[in-house]
């Protein structure tokens, strides 16, 4: 799904040794450095409390960093805050608009905060509210909208300054699959048109499907920063669930593959990445077992994510 190759040597985002210690003493970021190329669709993943929202808060000027710098299209958050903000569109995790205003008012006002005159902002608001399929609610108070509509409104609002870097902090949390898919469609379209996208999400299937590059943050440190393809290639064993017929009481004998019987019609197999699936099917067929359907036990990225976080938890002492 990811699209264009990075167009310029200047990264869309360059984070350099960014640190944040809150007044409570909690070290949310312990020297984070990473780069996101222009045009990228980048996943920033991590468990709750890992530091994702703090990092996004610093980029969007809502959190003051303790040390380090972040540059957006070459502009430093310290030297040119206004310039940085002009380049960024933010979709925050929590609903943060005035619930007594209408979506249209919210979008036009936010455009005004960016210095965009109302004559430009009005048609732009209509365009994005339409594209996100909430134009029919454009003049109703937002408190009357459903959760999915509110999430889409926050995306439309973030597009009002037509940012070159769009940061989405769990944009699809609590949204049903149909709306989630329509949001993916919109965001991939934006990315295709040239906007760099940074996505944080707990739906790892979403990250695997959409993103080209990935960083995993845990305990305020980047523990993995690579391309999605390279990361997924690290998965040495995949677990599949097979719906089968002809399964007897005894487990089938499968060379190099570890089977587990779930019930009379379901078999779970752990297949090393070096092992081909065809030989597995052949071995099952030879023992009178027919595979009627097959699926991954968990999402591939999810398996890797859990392993990386577990490994890091063993390394980092609990705070």
């Amino acid at each position, binding site marked *: 799904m990811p699209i264009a190759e990075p167009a310029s040597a200047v990264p869309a985002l360059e984070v350099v040794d960014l640190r944040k210690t*809150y*007044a409570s003493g909690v070290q949310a970021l312990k020297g984070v450095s990473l780069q996101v190329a222009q045009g990228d669709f980048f996943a920033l993943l991590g468990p709750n409390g890992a530091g994702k929202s703090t990092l996004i*808060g610093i980029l*969007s*000027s*809502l*959190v*003051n960093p303790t040390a380090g710098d972040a540059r957006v299209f070459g502009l430093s958050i310290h030297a040119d*805050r*206004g*310039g940085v*903000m*002009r*380049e*960024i569109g*933010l979709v*925050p995790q*929590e*609903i*943060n*608009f*005035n*619930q*007594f205003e209408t979506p249209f*008012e*919210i979008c036009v*006002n*936010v455009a*005004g*905060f*960016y*210095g*965009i*005159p109302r004559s430009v902002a009005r048609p732009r608001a209509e365009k994005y509210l339409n*594209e*996100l*399929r909430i134009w029919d609610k454009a003049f109703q108070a937002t408190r009357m909208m459903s959760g999915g509509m509110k999430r889409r409104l926050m995306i439309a*609002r973030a597009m009002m*300054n*037509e*940012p*070159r870097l769009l940061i989405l902090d769990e944009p699809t949390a609590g949204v049903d699959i149909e709306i989630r898919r*329509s949001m993916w*469609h*919109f965001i*991939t*379209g*934006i990315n*295709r*048109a*040239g*906007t760099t996208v940074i996505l944080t999400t707990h739906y790892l299937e979403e990250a695997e499907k959409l993103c080209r590059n990935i960083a995993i943050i845990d305990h305020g440190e980047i523990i993995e920063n690579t391309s999605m393809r390279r990361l997924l290639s690290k998965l040495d064993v995949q677990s599949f669930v097979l719906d089968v017929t002809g399964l007897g009481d005894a487990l089938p004998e499968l060379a190099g593959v570890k089977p587990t019987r779930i019930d009379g019609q379901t078999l779970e197999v752990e297949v090393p990445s070096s092992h081909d699936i065809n030989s597995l099917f052949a071995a099952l067929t030879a023992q009178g077992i027919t595979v009627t359907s097959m699926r991954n036990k968990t999402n591939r990225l999810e398996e890797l994510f859990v392993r990386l976080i577990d490994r890091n938890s063993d390394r980092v002492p609990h705070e």
Partner: protein
Amino acid sequence: MNDAAREPLTTPVVYTGAPRVRANLVALGTITRREVHRVMRIWTQTLVPPAITMTLYFVIFGKVIGSRIGTIEGGFSYMQYIVPGLVMMSIINNCYSNITSSFFGSKFGHYVEEMLASPMPSWVVLTGYVAGAVTRGIVVGVIVLGIALSFTSLHLAHPLVAVTTVLLGATIFSLAGFINAMFAKRFDDIAIVPTFVLQPLTYLGGVFYSINMLGSPWREVSKVNPILYMVNAFRYGILGASDVPVWMAYAVMLAFVVALGTVALWLLRRGVGLRS
């Protein structure tokens, strides 16, 4: 959501010089418009209560009690004497409560983040909120003055003094309210200052009496109350009478504008109560 037809997004303009000034003016106009729109949307909470309260003041203090007092300082009827103070009191209270409830509301509902995450400089945010609050203060002042004119006749002795005093007084209490809202963590915190500081200072600020009627040391103590200078400067603008020299009233008001404006801007730039 037809991405096939999507046009590439425009490359952002580099905002320096005149475009940046224009952008800031658009942003300033947006906040001011939003604030004024809010005042008008909830007019039953913002415009009607001061009109009712002040009508009661005029009836009770001006008509019922005032008729027994007779004339006061400079030969004015008691009703005429209290009108400037009550108008100023309405302006001050409404500016303060407007900015505290609006700005604290934006913090409480987190939509202040829309402004914090935008390129707007701090002075635009502050000026926009102050402009909204001053507008409400002026609208309320005009309403109260209109009600007062149905009870008594007035003439504008010094219109320029009256107008500038209203603007300066409204700005001072808008700035003070903004600072209060920045520090406030709960709705209770924005009610404490009006109840325990603003109201006593207003009542003791020469709204209902001349400080020349007080003996020493209360006359001298009254002069540390900034509201005294606003009320008297406005009274000078309307009636031509004041307990304090008008130049001194201007000096005090300008000093407060500069001091409170500097503090509010510094707090906003530091993100006190806004950024973690």
